[in-house]
């Protein structure tokens, strides 16, 4: 992984361009929140009006669903799960990149993460929020499912959830992931919230002040902060791997051909990272253009993310091939048919969409020219997102629609409610994002500045002692507190 950041240890990458001063970096980020001359750009309001309306559509759809029944969706016998769980896994998968960037790349000392981690973590939280809608609302009686899946002591029946059910494991895995991700994000925000507090006036100052938990930037604060951050990173790392592994158990532990396979946990995790990075690229490309922070989120960052997409996309493609091989090699006729049916049956169009988007398209990132082209990567990241949605749809619907007894075979067609609900989750996701960029610093200012100090130091040293290049990378950014208060 370290290679992704630095190919040649003697050439230091430039992670912040234009060599801005620390104060300029603070200004660049904070002014997005404060507005230019304290005026919020009208584009933000327009965007919020659009995404807000779509969010309201989501609530309307959910209201209609709860009032009428699951029948408003296209789900049927035998396709008991369709877009609902597809969307759940899709959003959970997207939510993987944030914690991966924050935690795993942190532990691997990948400094380029600092410009994108806040953004990616926010994306994680919002994606998990969208994902959580589905496990609740896909049930026939959400007013019961809301608490019957939790291990709450109860007096009227004295029954616990069924701990053999992967859905209960899901509840634990996803809720833990959501909690730790939120904590991690919040802890990372504290120094920057203090910066905002120091720059703000009036009510905003009070709110930022409360949220920054009395941060003063003292050495002791920094020491505790860095330790907490490190611990949370350590906690989050296994969660990144576990949450999607557990989600994959929903399928892997069933008897259904096409689901019942041991390859699922690693395959799902790779797919989740793949889709998560694709979503970060999609959103980051827009954000760095919209807020003119190209010098903070550089092509180098984007290229690194593209490399990860190339790696995980190839892993995913390998997993597809392995599934097919095992289906043939196992000699299980049901398994074999499911895969033939996937590729050549009624859902072949979905399968080949998935293959084109997930396996073929990331291969273009072998070419440096393409993986450093902002326009190209933007289009390709959208393709990957489409492909990863289809991967979940193919796994769920194409396995369910033709299982053991041909008498029960069927086909799933989404209804308008299915479509609008899914659209609505994008509305919620983007609305939360708009609030995020409006009210919170979307780039981890303190971390970027910490990283800049290294860069600066390195630049200074570079001309004299190029051989010291690797050494600076051993230093933790946390050990060089540079700034905390506002300047």
């Amino acid at each position, binding site marked *: 992984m370290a290679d992704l950041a630095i190919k040649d240890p003697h050439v230091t990458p430039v992670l912040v361009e234009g060599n801005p001063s620390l104060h300029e970096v603070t200004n660049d980020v904070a002014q997005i929140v404060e507005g230019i001359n304290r005026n919020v750009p009208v584009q933000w309001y327009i965007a919020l009006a659009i995404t807000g309306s779509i969010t309201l559509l989501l609530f309307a759809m959910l209201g209609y669903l709860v009032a009428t029944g*699951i029948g408003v969706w296209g*789900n*049927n016998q035998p396709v008991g799960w369709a877009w609902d769980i597809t969307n759940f896994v899709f959003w959970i998968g997207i939510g993987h990149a944030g914690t991966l960037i924050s935690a795993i790349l942190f532990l691997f000392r990948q400094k380029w993460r600092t410009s994108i981690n806040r953004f990616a973590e926010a994306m994680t939280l919002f994606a998990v929020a969208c994902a959580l809608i589905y496990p609740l609302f*896909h049930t*026939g009686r959400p007013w019961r499912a809301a608490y*019957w899946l939790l291990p709450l002591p109860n007096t009227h029946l004295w*029954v616990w959830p069924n701990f053999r059910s992967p*859905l209960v494991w899901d509840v634990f895995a996803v809720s833990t992931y959501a909690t730790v991700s939120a904590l991690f994000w919040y802890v990372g925000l504290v120094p920057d919230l203090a910066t905002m507090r120091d720059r703000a006036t009036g009510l905003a100052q009070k709110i930022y002040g409360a949220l920054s938990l009395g941060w003063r930037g003292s050495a002791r604060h920094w020491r505790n902060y860095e330790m907490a951050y490190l611990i949370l990173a350590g906690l989050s790392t296994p969660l990144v791997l576990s949450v999607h592994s557990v989600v994959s158990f929903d399928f892997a532990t069933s008897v259904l051909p096409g689901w019942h396979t041991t390859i699922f946990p690693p395959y799902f995790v790779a797919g989740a990272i793949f889709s998560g990075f694709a979503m970060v690229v999609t959103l980051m490309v827009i954000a760095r253009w919209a807020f003119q922070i190209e010098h903070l989120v550089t092509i180098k960052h984007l290229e690194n993310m593209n490399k990860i997409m190339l790696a995980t996309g190839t892993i995913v493609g390998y997993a597809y091939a392995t599934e097919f091989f095992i289906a043939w090699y196992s000699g299980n006729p049901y398994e074999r048919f499911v895969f033939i049916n996937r590729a050549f049956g009624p859902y072949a169009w979905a399968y080949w969409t998935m293959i084109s988007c997930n396996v073929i398209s990331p291969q273009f990132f072998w070419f440096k020219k393409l993986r450093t082209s902002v326009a190209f990567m933007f289009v390709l990241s959208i393709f990957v997102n489409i492909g990863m949605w289809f991967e979940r749809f193919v796994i769920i619907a194409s396995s369910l629609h033709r299982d053991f007894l041909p008498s029960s075979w069927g086909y799933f067609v989404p209804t308008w409610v299915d479509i609008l609900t899914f659209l609505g989750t994008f509305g919620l996701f983007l609305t939360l994002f708009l609030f995020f960029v409006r009210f919170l610093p979307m780039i981890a200012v303190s971390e970027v500045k910490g990283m800049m100090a290294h860069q600066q130091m390195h630049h200074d040293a570079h001309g004299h002692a190029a051989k010291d290049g690797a050494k600076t990378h051993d230093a933790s950014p946390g050990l060089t507190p540079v700034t905390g208060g506002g300047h």
Partner: protein
Amino acid sequence: MIQITKKLTGKKYWRSLDQYYQTTEFQDWLNKEFPTQAQEMIDEPSRRNVLKLMAASFALGGLTACRRPVEHILPYSRGVENLIHGKPLFYNTVMSLGGSATGLTARTYEGRPTKIEGNPDHPASLGATRGYHQASVLSLYDPGRMPNVRGDGKDSDWNGFTSYVQTLSGSLGNGAGLRFLSEPMNSPSFTAVKKHALTRFPAAKWVEYSPIHTTATAQPVAPRIAFDKAAVVVALDSDFLGLDDTTVVAVKEFVRGGRKVTDENPLMNRLYAVEPQFSVTGAAADHRFRMKSSEIAGFAGALLSAVQSQELKVVGQGNSSADKALSAIAKDLAANRGKSVVVAGPRQSGAVHQIVHQINQALGNVGPVVTYLKPASDQTRPQLDALKELAGEMANGQVNTLVITAWNPAFNAPADLEFEANLKKVANVIYLAQDLDETAMASKWAIPAAHYLESWGDAVAFDGTASIQQPTIQPLHGGKTAAELVAFVSGYKDLKAYDIVRNHWLPVVGGEKAWKKALHDGVIRPAAAVAGSAAPVFDTATPAPPTGGYEVIFVPSWSVFDGRFVNNAWLQETPDPMTKLTWDNAALVSQATARKLAVAMGDVIAIERNGRKVEGAVMIQPGLADDTIVIPVGYGRTKVGQVGEGAGFNAYKIRTSDTFGYGGGFNVSKTGRVYPLARTQEFEYQEEPKLVGFQEDVVRPIVREGTIEEFKKNPHFATEMVEHPPLKSLYGDYDYSKGQQWAMAIDLNACVGCNACMVACVAENNIGVVGKEQVARGREMHWIRMDRYYTGPVDEPQVVTAPIPCMQCETAPCENVCPVAATVHSPEGLNDMVYNRCVGTRYCSNNCPYKVRRFNFLNWHINEAEVTKMVYNPEVTVRMRGVMEKCTYCVQRIQNAKIDAKVEGRRWLKDGEVTPACAQACPSDAIVFGNVNDLESRVAKMKVSPRNYGMLAELNTKPRTTYLAKLRNPNPELQPVTAAEEHHG
């Protein structure tokens, strides 16, 4: 008893003389809101008072919200004998359909019939039923039933009709202009009424008509075939296992005679079916040959000459496989003289029936297997002749008064008789209407007909056994019986159905005690003598139907019969056993014919002959005769209740008297429109569909089948069809060796796929009806379904059927995955479903390899009429939306039986003491239920049969429902049938 009337009528009670005389004081008193309790406010309104009043009103207004809605309770003013609240009472009764009587037992709760079972003592039931009988209880509560008397197109009442009849009877004279039109008579008391009526009006005429069951004989004679005595059966266009017999006798005897194969002495009868449609009889056949209807006569003739010639080799030495089949069939028949039978279906002409009779005579089967009985009806001429004559008289104005007790002739009479138009030429048409149908609209008077569960009557079974039709509830809409109406019109005022029936039978049975016994038993013994002529005369005068062009075959519908069950949602949603079509009929064509017509499934075609045209959707069914269109009749009603509205198309529009059974000369054209059809099973084969070139041919071992020879060679052939690694359970196995362990065994060799189990299950378990659109989406709710698979060449397929209830797996995949433990295992081996714990994740359904779980996607009861709710079984929860449900093995019956046993001090139930609804209804006794730990039980014995196998048991589900593999008994001379061989007689 509960009665529903439109408005409260009856005696009026007065509170005082003031009320009686409607004095002003009384009116004032009545109009005061609080007559005595409250002082009226006489103060001048002040601001303070107004505010006080408003406050008080608000407080009181809030209080009213606490009130429960007012419900009226009708207590029993006198206790009903034997009634214990919550416990059912059973009454024996009888139902007639298409002229055949089936003895039934109605289960009632607090005076409300909810379930029909067969009466084991009745010869035409023997404890089993058809789906129609099961669903008939829903028709009782049909909100679309005729609610009141209608006269001259307006709502009226019985009094209005009485005064009308009084004026009418003066003008009837000797009855020269009076005609009666009834269904085929099988009611002795109604026959007595008929005789009285014809005595009173000697010039009147009585016509019997059924659009389905016709006789081919020229004299009153009914062939009775003892299928249990036949080792070889040749069915020529005869669906005797299906709809050509509305009773279950043929199925019972056929299965008992040679389909219940024992392991020690494997013997099977052999069934050849030669037919244009693909009936369930064809599905059960060991050899089935498709053949156009018009060619059946030729085939029968050739078969006759083959069996008559002493030297069989003379016939059938041609090169075609048809000749070979014919010769082999003839040889097989000749080898089984006196224990074989050839039967022809009701669609075939009298001439064919005569040939069939001659074949049976030549083989010595008349007597041992075929006997001719005297039918209950004394109609002496072919029914269509009489009906044609009636229509002619109506057109000529010779008919002044027509009393119709037959069901809806304006809809179902042959189209060339223009019955609906001719009805308008009759001044006085009195119609006994089930609902406000086509005939009711064209009649001067329409009288609500009493359902058989709400009125007295009687019916005679095929063997002369009479049964009293005992009501279980007061007529819901004040309906009358056919006998009551005819008696009333012919001058017997206020003669109740009860009196008609009782007066008829009391002298016959000999006294009150015998009458009570007859009611209790549901049968009157001894049966009347019914021996008929040994040399029946067949109707050979009626010319054979026209030939050429496309042949259209008119068959009854599994769902609506002749159309009378169109408003019955249970039947509409039960798929046709062969086509799996719900809520509609279709023009069924073979693959070759579809190619010729260039049509696909759902394309609407126009079928036309002599200017009569109907448009309907095409369904392609493998195995039909080419250039043949099979159409189930009874759909396409124009005046019908909510349920049947818009269902299918009306085949009666092109069914004329010369093409009554079938007929050629039809032109078919494409309309270009497409009509959606909703089927419960879209995939017809156990073979995997061939999606790509490198795919191997895999036939899934789901419904396992072998020949009797294979079975003799290797009794374990069925279990050996699947190889699997050793099975191990992740969570360990529960010890099921103790206590009563419920299990089911289904003999696929006995099942004919008649769907009776499905309807019985719907009735017993309050299963929701979802409607056509939801069926198309795949959301039907049946707890037991009938899987049907084609095997063999696509043009000459064979069919296997398998009822699929819940397998009650011992290691159930559904149970592991439920997050809230809403589906759990009982110590008696049942996979229990806890509705009120279910949150509806549908994970269990996804993980069920048999896909027998059913989810309430929507609230299926949202538009249900109040009266329909009376049909529900109070023992079973009506499920809300959002929860999963599935077969419980009728756990409510198990619990009731256990309670009864406990009261008697027994711990174990006796074998047969509890029977699930499906097993009880099954005409072929294919479904057997019991305790596997009771080694003497029938189910335990079936489970040790080498034919016994668990469907998908290789998944380690340990299913409690297992199957006995299907067997066929092919003629060694005739196999194998390959696609290259064409069979045309």
